[in-house]
Protein backbone atom coordinates (compact mmCIF):
# COMPACT_ATOMS: atom_id res chain seq x y z
CA UNK A 1 0.00 0.00 0.00
CA UNK A 2 2.81 2.34 0.85
CA UNK A 3 3.80 2.78 -2.78
CA UNK A 4 0.57 4.50 -3.83
CA UNK A 5 0.93 8.23 -4.45
CA UNK A 6 0.25 10.67 -1.61
CA UNK A 7 -2.83 12.76 -2.38
CA UNK A 8 -2.85 14.99 0.68
CA UNK A 9 -0.03 15.74 3.07
CA UNK A 10 0.02 17.89 6.20
CA UNK A 11 3.46 18.79 7.46
CA UNK A 12 3.41 20.15 11.02
CA UNK A 13 0.44 22.39 10.27
CA UNK A 14 -0.51 24.93 12.89
CA UNK A 15 -3.58 27.13 12.52
CA UNK A 16 -4.62 29.67 15.11
CA UNK A 17 -7.43 32.17 15.49
CA UNK A 18 -6.76 35.22 17.65
CA UNK A 19 -3.75 33.53 19.21
CA UNK A 20 -5.63 30.33 20.12
CA UNK A 21 -4.45 27.26 18.26
CA UNK A 22 -7.17 25.34 16.43
CA UNK A 23 -4.65 22.93 14.92
CA UNK A 24 -1.26 22.31 16.44
CA UNK A 25 1.60 20.70 14.51
CA UNK A 26 -0.64 18.24 12.70
CA UNK A 27 1.14 15.92 10.29
CA UNK A 28 -0.26 13.07 8.23
CA UNK A 29 -0.30 11.65 4.72
CA UNK A 30 -3.36 10.38 2.88
CA UNK A 31 -2.61 8.01 0.02
CA UNK A 32 -4.65 7.40 -3.07
CA UNK A 33 -7.74 5.29 -2.49
CA UNK A 34 -7.46 5.48 1.28
CA UNK A 35 -10.35 6.29 3.61
CA UNK A 36 -9.65 8.39 6.66
CA UNK A 37 -12.03 8.76 9.53
CA UNK A 38 -11.35 11.82 11.68
CA UNK A 39 -12.86 11.88 15.15
CA UNK A 40 -12.68 14.32 18.01
CA UNK A 41 -14.82 16.33 20.42
CA UNK A 42 -16.65 19.48 19.32
CA UNK A 43 -14.15 22.28 18.84
CA UNK A 44 -11.19 19.93 18.49
CA UNK A 45 -10.36 21.31 15.02
CA UNK A 46 -11.94 18.79 12.66
CA UNK A 47 -13.64 21.37 10.47
CA UNK A 48 -10.55 23.57 10.47
CA UNK A 49 -8.50 20.58 9.30
CA UNK A 50 -10.76 20.03 6.29
CA UNK A 51 -10.85 23.75 5.45
CA UNK A 52 -7.08 23.89 5.65
CA UNK A 53 -6.87 20.97 3.22
CA UNK A 54 -8.99 23.00 0.78
CA UNK A 55 -6.88 26.10 1.26
CA UNK A 56 -9.86 27.99 2.71
CA UNK A 57 -7.87 28.52 5.90
CA UNK A 58 -4.19 29.45 5.77
CA UNK A 59 -1.83 27.73 8.20
CA UNK A 60 0.25 29.95 10.47
CA UNK A 61 3.10 27.53 10.08
CA UNK A 62 3.73 24.20 8.42
CA UNK A 63 2.83 23.13 4.91
CA UNK A 64 -0.10 21.52 3.14
CA UNK A 65 0.46 19.55 -0.05
CA UNK A 66 -2.39 18.38 -2.22
CA UNK A 67 -1.78 16.38 -5.39
CA UNK A 68 1.91 17.08 -4.89
CA UNK A 69 1.50 20.86 -4.89
CA UNK A 70 2.23 23.14 -1.96
CA UNK A 71 -0.91 25.12 -1.15
CA UNK A 72 0.69 27.30 1.47
CA UNK A 73 1.95 30.09 -0.72
CA UNK A 74 -0.74 29.89 -3.39
CA UNK A 75 -3.00 32.75 -4.30
CA UNK A 76 -6.77 32.28 -4.39
CA UNK A 77 -6.83 32.05 -8.19
CA UNK A 78 -4.28 29.22 -8.18
CA UNK A 79 -6.13 27.46 -5.39
CA UNK A 80 -9.27 27.27 -7.55
CA UNK A 81 -7.55 24.72 -9.77
CA UNK A 82 -6.58 22.52 -6.81
CA UNK A 83 -10.02 22.85 -5.23
CA UNK A 84 -11.69 21.67 -8.40
CA UNK A 85 -10.05 18.32 -7.71
CA UNK A 86 -11.59 18.11 -4.25
CA UNK A 87 -15.21 17.71 -3.29
CA UNK A 88 -16.38 19.06 0.04
CA UNK A 89 -19.53 18.39 2.00
CA UNK A 90 -19.92 21.15 4.57
CA UNK A 91 -21.34 20.46 7.99
CA UNK A 92 -24.69 22.18 7.49
CA UNK A 93 -24.73 21.28 3.78
CA UNK A 94 -24.08 24.93 2.81
CA UNK A 95 -26.35 24.77 -0.22
CA UNK A 96 -26.97 28.20 -1.72
CA UNK A 97 -30.38 29.30 -0.42
CA UNK A 98 -31.12 31.51 -3.38
CA UNK A 99 -30.54 28.79 -5.97
CA UNK A 100 -32.61 25.72 -6.82
CA UNK A 101 -31.24 22.24 -6.25
CA UNK A 102 -30.46 21.98 -9.97
CA UNK A 103 -28.56 25.29 -9.93
CA UNK A 104 -26.74 24.26 -6.77
CA UNK A 105 -25.53 20.99 -8.23
CA UNK A 106 -24.68 22.68 -11.54
CA UNK A 107 -22.67 25.37 -9.74
CA UNK A 108 -19.29 23.57 -9.69
CA UNK A 109 -19.72 22.48 -13.31
CA UNK A 110 -20.34 26.05 -14.43
CA UNK A 111 -17.96 27.89 -12.14
CA UNK A 112 -14.87 25.73 -11.81
CA UNK A 113 -12.65 26.73 -14.68
CA UNK A 114 -10.60 23.56 -14.53
CA UNK A 115 -13.76 21.50 -15.05
CA UNK A 116 -14.47 21.51 -18.74
CA UNK A 117 -18.12 20.72 -18.97
CA UNK A 118 -19.92 21.91 -22.12
CA UNK A 119 -23.08 23.88 -21.28
CA UNK A 120 -25.40 21.44 -22.99
CA UNK A 121 -24.11 18.54 -20.91
CA UNK A 122 -24.64 20.29 -17.58
CA UNK A 123 -28.27 19.31 -17.20
CA UNK A 124 -27.60 15.64 -17.88
CA UNK A 125 -24.73 15.53 -15.40
CA UNK A 126 -26.79 17.23 -12.73
CA UNK A 127 -29.57 14.73 -13.24
CA UNK A 128 -27.10 11.89 -13.07
CA UNK A 129 -25.57 13.19 -9.84
CA UNK A 130 -29.00 13.65 -8.27
CA UNK A 131 -29.99 10.15 -9.34
CA UNK A 132 -26.83 8.87 -7.68
CA UNK A 133 -28.01 10.33 -4.35
CA UNK A 134 -31.60 9.22 -5.06
CA UNK A 135 -32.96 12.73 -5.28
CA UNK A 136 -34.20 12.79 -8.86
CA UNK A 137 -37.33 14.92 -9.10
CA UNK A 138 -36.17 17.70 -6.78
CA UNK A 139 -34.44 19.70 -9.50
CA UNK A 140 -36.70 22.72 -9.30
CA UNK A 141 -37.00 22.79 -5.51
CA UNK A 142 -35.18 25.22 -3.24
CA UNK A 143 -33.01 23.93 -0.39
CA UNK A 144 -35.47 25.29 2.18
CA UNK A 145 -38.15 22.98 0.78
CA UNK A 146 -36.14 19.85 1.53
CA UNK A 147 -35.65 17.90 4.76
CA UNK A 148 -32.26 17.86 6.49
CA UNK A 149 -31.37 14.45 5.09
CA UNK A 150 -32.37 15.44 1.57
CA UNK A 151 -30.32 18.63 1.80
CA UNK A 152 -27.35 16.57 2.91
CA UNK A 153 -27.83 14.32 -0.14
CA UNK A 154 -28.14 17.27 -2.50
CA UNK A 155 -24.94 18.67 -1.02
CA UNK A 156 -23.21 15.33 -1.61
CA UNK A 157 -24.38 15.47 -5.23
CA UNK A 158 -22.87 18.96 -5.53
CA UNK A 159 -19.61 17.75 -3.95
CA UNK A 160 -19.15 14.80 -6.30
CA UNK A 161 -20.75 16.03 -9.54
CA UNK A 162 -17.35 16.92 -11.00
CA UNK A 163 -16.00 13.47 -10.02
CA UNK A 164 -13.15 14.77 -7.86
CA UNK A 165 -10.49 12.23 -6.86
CA UNK A 166 -10.50 13.47 -3.25
CA UNK A 167 -13.68 14.03 -1.26
CA UNK A 168 -13.93 15.61 2.19
CA UNK A 169 -17.04 15.10 4.31
CA UNK A 170 -17.65 17.23 7.39
CA UNK A 171 -19.92 15.39 9.84
CA UNK A 172 -22.16 13.89 7.14
CA UNK A 173 -24.50 12.23 9.63
CA UNK A 174 -24.68 14.94 12.31
CA UNK A 175 -28.20 15.77 13.39
CA UNK A 176 -29.84 12.98 11.38
CA UNK A 177 -31.95 10.10 12.64
CA UNK A 178 -30.23 6.66 12.58
CA UNK A 179 -32.00 5.45 9.43
CA UNK A 180 -31.22 8.59 7.42
CA UNK A 181 -27.68 8.52 8.80
CA UNK A 182 -27.29 4.98 7.49
CA UNK A 183 -28.49 5.92 3.99
CA UNK A 184 -26.04 8.82 3.96
CA UNK A 185 -23.19 6.53 4.98
CA UNK A 186 -24.25 4.05 2.29
CA UNK A 187 -23.99 6.89 -0.23
CA UNK A 188 -20.50 7.86 0.88
CA UNK A 189 -19.33 4.27 0.61
CA UNK A 190 -20.99 3.95 -2.78
CA UNK A 191 -19.22 7.08 -3.99
CA UNK A 192 -15.92 5.77 -2.63
CA UNK A 193 -16.27 2.34 -4.24
CA UNK A 194 -17.85 3.35 -7.55
CA UNK A 195 -15.56 6.32 -8.28
CA UNK A 196 -12.51 5.05 -6.34
CA UNK A 197 -12.11 8.33 -4.49
CA UNK A 198 -9.81 9.08 -1.62
CA UNK A 199 -12.04 9.97 1.31
CA UNK A 200 -11.62 12.06 4.45
CA UNK A 201 -14.62 11.89 6.74
CA UNK A 202 -15.12 13.81 9.95
CA UNK A 203 -17.52 12.19 12.37
CA UNK A 204 -18.15 11.72 16.04
CA UNK A 205 -20.22 8.57 15.51
CA UNK A 206 -18.10 5.46 15.78
CA UNK A 207 -20.65 3.46 13.73
CA UNK A 208 -19.84 5.66 10.72
CA UNK A 209 -16.16 4.83 10.91
CA UNK A 210 -17.00 1.19 11.40
CA UNK A 211 -19.14 1.15 8.25
CA UNK A 212 -16.35 2.88 6.31
CA UNK A 213 -13.82 0.29 7.43
CA UNK A 214 -15.84 -2.91 7.04
CA UNK A 215 -18.38 -2.42 4.33
CA UNK A 216 -18.28 -1.95 0.62
CA UNK A 217 -20.81 -1.15 -2.02
CA UNK A 218 -22.29 -4.04 -3.96
CA UNK A 219 -23.02 -2.64 -7.37
CA UNK A 220 -25.13 -5.64 -8.41
CA UNK A 221 -27.56 -5.59 -5.54
CA UNK A 222 -27.19 -1.89 -4.85
CA UNK A 223 -26.50 -2.00 -1.13
CA UNK A 224 -23.74 -2.35 1.42
CA UNK A 225 -22.19 -5.69 2.23
CA UNK A 226 -19.48 -6.79 4.65
CA UNK A 227 -16.11 -6.47 2.97
CA UNK A 228 -14.26 -9.35 4.56
CA UNK A 229 -15.98 -12.41 3.19
CA UNK A 230 -14.88 -12.12 -0.43
CA UNK A 231 -11.70 -11.68 -2.33
CA UNK A 232 -12.33 -7.94 -2.55
CA UNK A 233 -11.36 -5.94 0.51
CA UNK A 234 -12.71 -2.55 1.44
CA UNK A 235 -10.08 0.14 0.82
CA UNK A 236 -7.76 0.70 3.71
CA UNK A 237 -9.29 2.82 6.45
CA UNK A 238 -7.18 4.89 8.80
CA UNK A 239 -8.59 6.44 11.96
CA UNK A 240 -7.42 9.78 13.30
CA UNK A 241 -8.35 11.34 16.63
CA UNK A 242 -8.00 15.06 17.32
CA UNK A 243 -7.83 16.50 20.81
CA UNK A 244 -7.74 20.29 21.18
CA UNK A 245 -6.06 20.71 17.84
CA UNK A 246 -3.47 17.97 18.29
CA UNK A 247 -3.49 14.70 16.40
CA UNK A 248 -3.24 12.22 19.26
CA UNK A 249 -4.00 9.03 17.38
CA UNK A 250 -3.49 7.77 13.86
CA UNK A 251 -3.81 4.13 12.86
CA UNK A 252 -6.00 1.18 12.04
CA UNK A 253 -9.25 0.34 13.73
CA UNK A 254 -7.65 -2.55 15.63
CA UNK A 255 -5.05 -0.24 17.10
CA UNK A 256 -7.75 2.31 17.87
CA UNK A 257 -9.73 -0.24 19.81
CA UNK A 258 -6.63 -1.37 21.65
CA UNK A 259 -5.71 2.18 22.68
CA UNK A 260 -5.53 2.82 26.40
CA UNK A 261 -5.84 6.61 26.09
CA UNK A 262 -8.99 7.63 27.99
CA UNK A 263 -9.86 10.38 25.45
CA UNK A 264 -9.50 7.98 22.52
CA UNK A 265 -11.52 5.34 24.34
CA UNK A 266 -14.47 7.73 24.57
CA UNK A 267 -14.95 7.46 20.81
CA UNK A 268 -14.69 3.70 20.62
CA UNK A 269 -17.81 1.63 20.99
CA UNK A 270 -17.92 -2.17 20.81
CA UNK A 271 -18.38 -3.47 17.28
CA UNK A 272 -21.70 -5.06 16.53
Amino acid sequence: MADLPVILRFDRVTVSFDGVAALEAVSFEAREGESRVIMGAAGSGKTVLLKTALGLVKPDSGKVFAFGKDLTGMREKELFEIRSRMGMLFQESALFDSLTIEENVAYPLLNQKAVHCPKREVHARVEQALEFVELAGTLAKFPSELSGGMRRRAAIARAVVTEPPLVLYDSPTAGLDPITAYTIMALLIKERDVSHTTTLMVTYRYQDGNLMAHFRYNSKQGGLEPAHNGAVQAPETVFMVLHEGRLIFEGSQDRLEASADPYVRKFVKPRN
Partner: protein
Amino acid sequence: MVASSYGDRPKLLELLKEPVSEFQDFFLLAGRAYRNLLRRPHYWDDVFLQMDSIGVGSLVIVTLTGFFSGAVMALQMARALQTYGQVGRTGMLVSISLVRELGPVLSALMVAARNASGMASELGSMKVTEQIDAMRALGTDPVQKLVTPRLIATASMLPLLTTIADFVGMFGGWLIARFYLGIGSVQYWNSVWKILVWNDVLQGLLKPFIFANMIALVGCYYGLRTTGGTQGVGRSTTQAVVASGIMIFVLDLMLTQCFVYSAS
Protein backbone atom coordinates in the same frame (compact mmCIF):
# COMPACT_ATOMS: atom_id res chain seq x y z
CA MET B 1 3.44 54.76 39.78
CA VAL B 2 6.24 53.98 37.45
CA ALA B 3 4.87 50.55 36.80
CA SER B 4 1.42 51.85 35.86
CA SER B 5 2.60 54.55 33.49
CA TYR B 6 4.91 52.00 31.99
CA GLY B 7 2.03 49.53 31.53
CA ASP B 8 -0.37 52.06 29.98
CA ARG B 9 1.26 52.22 26.62
CA PRO B 10 0.77 48.60 25.59
CA LYS B 11 -2.80 48.83 26.87
CA LEU B 12 -3.53 51.85 24.71
CA LEU B 13 -1.98 50.12 21.72
CA GLU B 14 -4.04 47.05 22.51
CA LEU B 15 -7.18 49.23 22.52
CA LEU B 16 -6.28 50.79 19.19
CA LYS B 17 -5.35 47.54 17.55
CA GLU B 18 -8.87 46.38 16.85
CA PRO B 19 -10.30 49.54 15.24
CA VAL B 20 -7.14 49.90 13.18
CA SER B 21 -7.27 46.35 11.92
CA GLU B 22 -11.00 46.69 11.19
CA PHE B 23 -10.32 49.84 9.23
CA GLN B 24 -7.61 48.03 7.34
CA ASP B 25 -9.92 45.06 6.59
CA PHE B 26 -12.59 47.46 5.34
CA PHE B 27 -10.22 49.11 2.88
CA LEU B 28 -8.86 45.75 1.77
CA LEU B 29 -12.41 44.66 0.95
CA ALA B 30 -13.08 47.95 -0.82
CA GLY B 31 -9.89 47.57 -2.83
CA ARG B 32 -10.82 44.06 -3.93
CA ALA B 33 -14.36 45.10 -4.78
CA TYR B 34 -13.16 47.95 -7.04
CA ARG B 35 -10.40 45.86 -8.60
CA ASN B 36 -13.04 43.31 -9.61
CA LEU B 37 -14.83 45.97 -11.66
CA LEU B 38 -12.12 45.46 -14.23
CA ARG B 39 -11.79 41.71 -13.91
CA ARG B 40 -13.71 38.84 -15.34
CA PRO B 41 -16.00 37.07 -14.71
CA HIS B 42 -18.70 39.72 -14.36
CA TYR B 43 -21.88 38.48 -12.74
CA TRP B 44 -24.35 40.70 -14.60
CA ASP B 45 -27.34 38.62 -13.53
CA ASP B 46 -26.49 39.42 -9.94
CA VAL B 47 -26.01 43.10 -10.77
CA PHE B 48 -29.50 43.33 -12.32
CA LEU B 49 -31.04 41.36 -9.48
CA GLN B 50 -29.53 43.80 -6.99
CA MET B 51 -30.55 46.82 -9.07
CA ASP B 52 -34.09 45.55 -8.91
CA SER B 53 -33.93 44.91 -5.19
CA ILE B 54 -32.29 48.24 -4.37
CA GLY B 55 -33.79 50.51 -7.03
CA VAL B 56 -37.31 49.22 -7.51
CA GLY B 57 -37.50 47.92 -3.96
CA SER B 58 -36.68 51.29 -2.39
CA LEU B 59 -38.75 53.38 -4.77
CA VAL B 60 -41.83 53.63 -2.56
CA ILE B 61 -40.09 54.61 0.66
CA VAL B 62 -37.80 57.05 -1.11
CA THR B 63 -40.76 58.64 -2.89
CA LEU B 64 -42.69 58.99 0.34
CA THR B 65 -39.70 60.46 2.14
CA GLY B 66 -39.16 62.95 -0.69
CA PHE B 67 -42.80 63.96 -0.80
CA PHE B 68 -43.13 64.64 2.89
CA SER B 69 -39.80 66.40 3.28
CA GLY B 70 -40.70 68.70 0.36
CA ALA B 71 -44.10 69.46 1.86
CA VAL B 72 -42.69 70.07 5.32
CA MET B 73 -39.93 72.28 3.96
CA ALA B 74 -42.52 74.40 2.13
CA LEU B 75 -44.48 74.93 5.33
CA GLN B 76 -41.44 75.72 7.44
CA MET B 77 -39.77 77.99 4.91
CA ALA B 78 -42.99 79.89 4.19
CA ARG B 79 -43.31 80.61 7.87
CA ALA B 80 -39.74 81.85 8.12
CA LEU B 81 -40.06 83.90 4.92
CA GLN B 82 -43.27 85.50 6.17
CA THR B 83 -41.18 87.57 8.59
CA TYR B 84 -39.58 89.27 5.60
CA GLY B 85 -42.73 89.30 3.50
CA GLN B 86 -41.10 86.98 0.99
CA VAL B 87 -43.48 84.00 1.04
CA GLY B 88 -43.41 84.01 -2.76
CA ARG B 89 -39.85 82.71 -2.69
CA THR B 90 -40.75 79.50 -0.88
CA GLY B 91 -39.99 77.45 -4.01
CA MET B 92 -36.37 78.57 -4.00
CA LEU B 93 -35.66 77.35 -0.50
CA VAL B 94 -37.55 74.10 -1.00
CA SER B 95 -35.57 73.46 -4.14
CA ILE B 96 -32.15 74.25 -2.70
CA SER B 97 -32.63 72.32 0.50
CA LEU B 98 -33.98 69.31 -1.36
CA VAL B 99 -31.39 69.10 -4.08
CA ARG B 100 -28.40 69.88 -1.93
CA GLU B 101 -29.21 68.18 1.33
CA LEU B 102 -32.51 66.52 2.05
CA GLY B 103 -32.82 64.50 -1.12
CA PRO B 104 -29.35 62.93 -0.96
CA VAL B 105 -29.20 62.47 2.81
CA LEU B 106 -32.71 61.19 3.42
CA SER B 107 -32.70 58.86 0.42
CA ALA B 108 -29.33 57.51 1.49
CA LEU B 109 -30.58 56.97 5.03
CA MET B 110 -33.59 55.07 3.71
CA VAL B 111 -31.47 52.93 1.41
CA ALA B 112 -28.99 52.34 4.25
CA ALA B 113 -31.78 51.20 6.53
CA ARG B 114 -33.26 48.97 3.88
CA ASN B 115 -30.27 47.69 1.94
CA ALA B 116 -27.15 47.98 4.11
CA SER B 117 -29.06 45.92 6.65
CA GLY B 118 -30.28 43.57 3.95
CA MET B 119 -26.77 43.04 2.62
CA ALA B 120 -25.31 42.51 6.10
CA SER B 121 -27.96 39.97 7.04
CA GLU B 122 -27.90 38.14 3.71
CA LEU B 123 -24.12 37.86 3.53
CA GLY B 124 -23.98 37.27 7.28
CA SER B 125 -26.26 34.26 7.12
CA MET B 126 -24.31 32.96 4.14
CA LYS B 127 -21.15 33.32 6.19
CA VAL B 128 -22.40 31.49 9.28
CA THR B 129 -23.90 28.65 7.23
CA GLU B 130 -20.57 28.22 5.39
CA GLN B 131 -22.07 29.23 2.03
CA ILE B 132 -19.24 31.74 1.61
CA ASP B 133 -16.71 28.95 2.16
CA ALA B 134 -18.66 26.74 -0.25
CA MET B 135 -18.47 29.48 -2.85
CA ARG B 136 -14.70 29.63 -2.53
CA ALA B 137 -14.49 25.84 -2.56
CA LEU B 138 -16.50 25.76 -5.78
CA GLY B 139 -14.38 28.22 -7.70
CA THR B 140 -15.91 31.67 -7.17
CA ASP B 141 -14.52 34.69 -5.43
CA PRO B 142 -17.24 35.83 -2.97
CA VAL B 143 -16.17 39.46 -3.38
CA GLN B 144 -16.60 39.21 -7.15
CA LYS B 145 -19.90 37.37 -6.89
CA LEU B 146 -21.49 39.17 -3.93
CA VAL B 147 -19.84 42.50 -3.14
CA THR B 148 -19.07 43.96 -6.56
CA PRO B 149 -22.62 43.50 -7.93
CA ARG B 150 -24.07 45.16 -4.83
CA LEU B 151 -21.60 48.00 -5.20
CA ILE B 152 -22.44 48.57 -8.86
CA ALA B 153 -26.18 48.32 -8.22
CA THR B 154 -26.23 50.71 -5.26
CA ALA B 155 -23.92 53.23 -6.91
CA SER B 156 -26.11 53.38 -10.01
CA MET B 157 -29.49 53.28 -8.27
CA LEU B 158 -29.07 55.74 -5.42
CA PRO B 159 -28.41 58.82 -7.62
CA LEU B 160 -31.50 57.88 -9.63
CA LEU B 161 -33.62 57.38 -6.52
CA THR B 162 -32.37 60.69 -5.16
CA THR B 163 -33.35 62.49 -8.35
CA ILE B 164 -36.82 61.02 -8.11
CA ALA B 165 -37.04 62.01 -4.45
CA ASP B 166 -36.02 65.57 -5.35
CA PHE B 167 -38.76 65.89 -7.97
CA VAL B 168 -41.43 64.33 -5.79
CA GLY B 169 -40.33 66.64 -2.98
CA MET B 170 -40.72 69.69 -5.24
CA PHE B 171 -44.16 68.42 -6.13
CA GLY B 172 -45.00 68.05 -2.43
CA GLY B 173 -43.82 71.61 -1.88
CA TRP B 174 -45.98 72.76 -4.79
CA LEU B 175 -49.10 71.19 -3.27
CA ILE B 176 -48.52 73.13 -0.07
CA ALA B 177 -47.58 76.33 -1.91
CA ARG B 178 -50.54 76.21 -4.26
CA PHE B 179 -53.34 75.06 -1.96
CA TYR B 180 -52.21 76.17 1.46
CA LEU B 181 -50.05 79.22 0.95
CA GLY B 182 -51.83 80.52 -2.12
CA ILE B 183 -48.68 80.90 -4.23
CA GLY B 184 -49.28 80.64 -7.97
CA SER B 185 -48.00 77.53 -9.75
CA VAL B 186 -45.99 79.50 -12.30
CA GLN B 187 -44.33 81.54 -9.61
CA TYR B 188 -43.50 78.45 -7.55
CA TRP B 189 -41.97 76.43 -10.37
CA ASN B 190 -40.10 79.47 -11.68
CA SER B 191 -38.43 80.03 -8.37
CA VAL B 192 -37.71 76.33 -8.06
CA TRP B 193 -35.84 76.18 -11.36
CA LYS B 194 -34.16 79.55 -11.40
CA ILE B 195 -32.25 79.09 -8.18
CA LEU B 196 -30.59 75.83 -9.19
CA VAL B 197 -27.11 76.06 -10.71
CA TRP B 198 -24.79 73.36 -12.05
CA ASN B 199 -22.97 73.19 -8.78
CA ASP B 200 -26.22 72.13 -7.09
CA VAL B 201 -27.02 69.50 -9.67
CA LEU B 202 -23.50 68.10 -9.44
CA GLN B 203 -23.70 68.10 -5.66
CA GLY B 204 -27.10 66.46 -5.80
CA LEU B 205 -25.76 63.58 -7.87
CA LEU B 206 -22.25 63.18 -6.52
CA LYS B 207 -23.37 62.94 -2.91
CA PRO B 208 -25.70 59.98 -3.44
CA PHE B 209 -23.07 58.31 -5.60
CA ILE B 210 -20.50 58.50 -2.81
CA PHE B 211 -23.01 57.57 -0.11
CA ALA B 212 -24.01 54.56 -2.20
CA ASN B 213 -20.44 53.28 -2.46
CA MET B 214 -20.08 53.57 1.28
CA ILE B 215 -23.48 51.93 2.03
CA ALA B 216 -22.78 48.88 -0.14
CA LEU B 217 -19.26 48.40 1.20
CA VAL B 218 -20.28 48.83 4.84
CA GLY B 219 -23.22 46.44 4.44
CA CYS B 220 -21.08 43.79 2.77
CA TYR B 221 -18.17 44.30 5.15
CA TYR B 222 -20.27 43.68 8.24
CA GLY B 223 -21.97 40.74 6.53
CA LEU B 224 -18.74 39.02 5.56
CA ARG B 225 -17.15 39.37 8.98
CA THR B 226 -20.12 37.84 10.80
CA THR B 227 -19.34 35.12 13.30
CA GLY B 228 -21.38 33.44 16.01
CA GLY B 229 -24.45 31.98 14.36
CA THR B 230 -27.84 33.65 14.02
CA GLN B 231 -27.12 35.99 16.91
CA GLY B 232 -24.08 37.19 15.06
CA VAL B 233 -26.20 37.95 12.00
CA GLY B 234 -28.45 40.20 14.08
CA ARG B 235 -25.44 41.99 15.50
CA SER B 236 -23.89 42.56 12.06
CA THR B 237 -27.16 43.91 10.69
CA THR B 238 -27.47 46.48 13.47
CA GLN B 239 -23.82 47.48 13.16
CA ALA B 240 -24.15 47.95 9.41
CA VAL B 241 -27.16 50.28 9.76
CA VAL B 242 -25.59 52.31 12.57
CA ALA B 243 -22.21 52.62 10.85
CA SER B 244 -23.60 53.53 7.45
CA GLY B 245 -26.06 56.00 9.01
CA ILE B 246 -23.29 57.82 10.83
CA MET B 247 -21.01 57.70 7.81
CA ILE B 248 -23.70 59.39 5.69
CA PHE B 249 -23.61 62.43 7.97
CA VAL B 250 -19.81 62.47 8.22
CA LEU B 251 -19.40 62.25 4.45
CA ASP B 252 -22.16 64.81 3.94
CA LEU B 253 -20.33 67.34 6.06
CA MET B 254 -17.08 66.72 4.20
CA LEU B 255 -18.69 66.90 0.77
CA THR B 256 -20.72 69.99 1.60
CA GLN B 257 -17.53 71.65 2.79
CA CYS B 258 -15.91 70.83 -0.57
CA PHE B 259 -18.82 72.23 -2.59
CA VAL B 260 -19.15 75.37 -0.49
CA TYR B 261 -15.43 75.93 -0.89
CA SER B 262 -15.47 75.31 -4.65
CA ALA B 263 -18.51 77.55 -5.17
CA SER B 264 -16.99 80.57 -3.42
